């Protein structure tokens, strides 16, 4: 894989969003991935609706949490995702008012990635931003820089937050993952969290997935 890569430099990442007081990180992680996949296949970057998933994805639990693997399946069954502007985010569950005619992007299937960080790095550079999940304990206190918490603070089995891997590189010799979060732009570094790359820190390698757009 190249020494560094950042899909923000290639137009495949929409602006940082804000999930508000709702556990809907899974929806933002998945829409972020599909935005990237749709861009790479069709050349247009859309901002896709998380609220549609919060309201209409019956496999998941809206603000009480959800799984990317379920969300991909729900999107396939629904027939696709509407744009953010057509189905805007409110941060709490409402009745589903999905409209097929407004579908802006669809997916054909979804895949799970290897748990080897080198493989993940190469896959990201070749295929686009990746939906991932990690232990977010340190993120409550994070302001900036490359975070590398001790394992006792970041149990890799206690995964509790889904985010989007958009790039990787090195800062002053410290390898990092660039992670798009969904807590608004006033969090971390303009909405991004940078995590040490190479030690499976915080379980970042455990739940990598992507939609497939033919």
């Amino acid at each position, binding site marked *: 894989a190249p020494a560094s890569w950042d899909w923000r430099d290639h137009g495949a990442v929409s602006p940082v969003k804000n999930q508000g007081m709702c556990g809907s990180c899974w929806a933002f992680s998945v829409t972020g991935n599909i935005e990237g996949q749709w861009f790479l296949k069709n050349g247009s970057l859309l901002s896709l609706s998380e609220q549609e998933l919060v309201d209409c994805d019956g496999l998941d639990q809206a603000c009480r949490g959800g799984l990317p693997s379920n969300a*991909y399946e729900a999107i396939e069954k629904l027939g696709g995702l509407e744009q953010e502007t057509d189905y805007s985010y409110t941060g709490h569950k409402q009745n589903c008012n999905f409209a097929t005619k407004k579908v802006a992007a669809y997916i054909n299937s979804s*895949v799970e*990635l290897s748990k080897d960080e080198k*493989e993940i790095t*190469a896959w990201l550079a070749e295929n686009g931003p990746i939906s991932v999940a990690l232990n977010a304990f340190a993120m409550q206190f994070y302001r900036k820089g490359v975070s590398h918490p001790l394992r006792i603070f970041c149990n890799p089995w206690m995964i*509790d937050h889904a985010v989007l891997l958009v790039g990787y590189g090195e800062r002053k010799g410290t390898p990092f993952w660039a992670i798009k979060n969904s*807590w608004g732009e006033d969090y971390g570094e303009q909405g991004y969290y*940078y995590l040490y790359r190479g030690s499976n820190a915080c379980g970042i390698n455990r739940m990598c997935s992507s939609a497939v757009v033919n």
Partner: protein
Amino acid sequence: DLDRPLFGPPGSAIRLHESDQGLKKALEFAEDRYNRGSNAMHLRKVSRFISATKQLVKGIRYTITVEVSNTQCKKSSMLKTCDFYRESQKLKTELCVFEVWDIPWQDTSTLLKQKCQPIVEPQIEETNKVEDQSNSQPLEESVALLGQFKEFLVKYNKVYSSQEEAERRLRIFHENLKTAEKLQSLDQGSAEYGVTKFSDLTEEEFRSTYLNPLLSQWTLHRPMKPAAPARSP
């Protein structure tokens, strides 16, 4: 009902300026009660005003944060004007929080709370060694914490429903700062930890509001097709 227009919604705390007449009366009452309750020889008076709020309850509740120091007057003397000592060691200054409940229509006041802690000055000995502060609660730390909390409230536009809630959030804020310091001291990367917009939330509140515990329930995960490995750079 003259006071009502000067108050926010029932129960909300309103910040006061030092010159507020009601506050002056409450502060004099607190000072008097403080001196009656202490067995110090010298009369102690408010040497610096820090902050105060008032709240409409059955009457008015004042919450006042001030510094109190020794004057040169003995308690037994009936002198009206008393100067403070010039030497800081003799001042024996304390940071105090008083809560006074004032019932105007009965012309009575009650001291609900009095919390004071000494302000420790750095001790410079002949050898010019500065005493280690880490195991004591110096005022600077408290004032710095209050300053950080105030900055946090303004930056993230935080409003709390009552003085108690504000004090509870301050305690949580303080705990979170200590956790951030621990993370900072043990981090193996180049991260900076500290105050964020989540700094007034307990770990449990943060987890239940913003996180997604379903993710670590592995049995729920639907098996997915494995992705083909990357072909080439």
